[in-house]
């Protein structure tokens, strides 16, 4: 055992000095290893504990392109305000060099890293930044993002959609066996009357299926009604003309009219010029239709489909030439003009109901009934939900709160 007291003072001092120098050099070295590029000569050195428990985990329900990172913030961030200036997130791809990918404000404890590839592995380091430098955590274990095939957060959306779809399929099957009840829609009988009126007056009928393409269900509903009208028109031998703004609609409308004329036993009356393409440009189309409305003066105008700003211009021009106008659209913003300027208007879903009713097609009727099931469900949920939440919040009834929470979790898409 070394005892300074038994040796000379000089030797003791020498050993002390050597030991001190050694220990100092070791501590300096150790510090420079821990705090890379930190200014250590500054007497105002601001040291912070690094973030701990840094965990990189799989980001749920993505296409193998994201990972989630969480950590416990530096204890100094939690205790002292303003000491930690930021957190820097570093990422190493496939065991390579660390590169900074994000700087976050103090208080943050998670980060989602996007734009990754499922073929690579990633490891992360989070550093707390002070005025003096960075204090890094340990690196996380390497992890690769994985693709999930199903998003379980959307399970209620799926189940409710499945329920309504099943109802639609059930009613389509039923409609094939027996006639389904659909309430009378006001204005439907006016369609035949309007065709008859044009025939009596010896004038033409103008049909406008909106300005949208075949991917819009309103255009489809408009063409279904056209199919029904075209049959009557062929029987009465009335002139029909139909300018359209989409080439696909022109194709579909020609086929619809051709089929109707054939069914009515008047295929000779069909010719392609009944349906003409004008232009895709909204107001160019309107300028043309307005012009021919004034020149041809049709006795009846049908405006059935998806309409936008042109609705008022077309309905107003039709009104000014004294035509009977039957309109229908599911665009809420355009309905006011049709209601004001047309003789009959199919409001919103009535357009689809009318197309189902007139076509008498099991698929259309079944869809309509199936959708009614969905509406009944929505009505029930709104009624119960509003009553329950009002009672729960006013009188703090726990059972009601449970009902509200359940409904909210089912219908939540956030």
């Amino acid at each position, binding site marked *: 055992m070394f005892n300074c007291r038994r040796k000379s003072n000089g030797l003791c001092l020498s050993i002390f000095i050597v030991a001190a120098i050694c220990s100092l050099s070791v501590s300096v070295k150790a510090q420079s290893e821990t705090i890379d590029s930190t200014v250590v000569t500054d007497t105002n050195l601001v040291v912070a504990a690094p973030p701990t428990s840094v965990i990189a985990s799989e980001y749920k329900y993505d296409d193998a*392109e994201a990972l989630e990172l969480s950590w416990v913030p530096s204890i100094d961030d939690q205790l002292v305000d303003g000491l930690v200036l930021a957190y820097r997130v570093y990422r190493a791809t496939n065991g390579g060099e660390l590169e900074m990918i994000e700087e976050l404000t103090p208080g943050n404890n998670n980060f989602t890293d996007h734009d990754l590839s499922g073929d690579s592995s990633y490891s992360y380091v989070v550093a707390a930044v002070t005025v003096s430098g960075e204090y890094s955590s340990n690196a996380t274990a390497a992890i690769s993002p994985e693709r999930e095939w199903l998003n379980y957060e959307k399970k209620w959306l799926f189940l409710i959609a499945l329920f309504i779809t099943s109802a639609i399929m059930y009613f389509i099957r039923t409609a094939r066996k027996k006639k389904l009840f659909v309430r009378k829609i006001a204005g439907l009988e006016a369609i035949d009357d309007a065709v008859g009126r044009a025939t009596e007056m010896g004038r033409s009928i103008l049909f406008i299926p909106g300005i949208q393409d075949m991917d819009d269900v309103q255009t489809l509903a408009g063409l279904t009604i056209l199919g029904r009208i075209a049959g009557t028109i062929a029987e009465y031998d009335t002139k029909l003309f139909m300018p359209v703004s989409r080439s696909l609609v022109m194709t579909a409308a020609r086929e619809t009219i051709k089929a109707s004329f054939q069914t009515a036993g008047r295929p000779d009356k069909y010719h392609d010029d009944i349906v003409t393409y004008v232009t895709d440009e909204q107001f160019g189309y309107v300028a043309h239709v307005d012009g021919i409305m004034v020149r041809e003066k049709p006795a009846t105008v049908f405006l059935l489909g998806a309409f936008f700003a042109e609705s008022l211009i077309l309905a107003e021009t039709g009104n000014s030439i004294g035509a009977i106008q039957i309109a229908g659209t599911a665009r*809420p*913003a355009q309905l006011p003009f049709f209601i004001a300027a047309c003789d009959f208007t199919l409001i919103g879903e009535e357009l689809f109901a009318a197309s189902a009713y007139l076509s008498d097609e099991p698929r259309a009727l079944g869809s309509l009934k199936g959708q009614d099931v969905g509406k009944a469900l929505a009505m029930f949920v709104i009624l119960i939900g509003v009553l329950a939440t009002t009672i729960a919040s006013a009188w703090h009834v726990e059972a009601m709160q449970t009902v509200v929470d359940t409904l909210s979790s089912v219908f939540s898409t956030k």
Partner: protein
Amino acid sequence: MSTRLKEMLVVAVMTVFFVIMYWGKVDGWMTGFQFSFGLSMTVVALIVVSLLVILYLTLQGKMIGRRVVFLYVGISVTLPFFMSLSQQIKISPEVQTLYDGIAELPPGSVVLSAFDYDPPSAPELQPMAESFFRYCFNNDLKVIVIGLWPQGPQQANMAIEKVMLDESIAAKNLQYGIDYVNLGFQTGNEFVIQRMGSDFKSMFPTDYSGTPYDELPLVKNVKNFSNIDYGFNFSAGYPGTVEWVQVAVDRYGLKMGAGNTAVQAPQCYPYIRSGQLIGILGGMNGAAEFELLTGTVGKGTKFMLSQSFAHMIVIAFIIIGNVAYFRGGRKRKL
């Protein structure tokens, strides 16, 4: 008067009008034409009196023609251009929340702006677009432009060109490709938004002028909506705000605001209440409010007086029309 004579008279009046206008322009006497305050008030008073006369005539059973209504609307919109009157603009909550959403973005944030309109809707949406770019460029926000309508990106370029003339923005010496980029039009409506949710580049392999996506520094590292800090949709119909909300907001969580034509603004209001949109600029009124908040005076503010005058005329004719309707109805019953 025969129809032929009437038509010739109209042509003669139009010709004289054109000649006077051309002379005025060449001579310069009508540049910056402005009524004094007194004259402005006199004109307003004359219009009110003439409307009262029309109301009186209607009550007497003398109906006016539709062309008179057209004329009044035309006058009510035109005269305020030259009047020395101003109108106070009040900020509505949905415009305030929209502005607050943009104002909290730090410099360098990436903003995606979708231009889904064409020249016919420009009077309402172009002032919004201009103040939007003005704000973004002045506050160092990076802007990516796309369009789901063919003429949308062109409208964006026109707005950018205009705001670049501002001294404060010209001084910043903004670079195309670094500070802003126009990726052009893509057909496919909401399917484009859906694909952008996984990969922007697949929908826009090149920008407006054909430069490959990877050669544009601003978007080189933008893969999908997760790299976008804020979305702004200028919309005049379909595809537009409804589709952006349904796909970009609800599926991909994009924070979004919208500038709509007044026609479709009511359709988008439910999205504010449910938090799917942070705010809406509705029509020219919305544009004027946004201009006020961003501290600029553009066409939105300038034309609010015309808008208000026209509204008053429309209300007056709704009253006159209803008087005529009920008077006619009573007659029929008798």
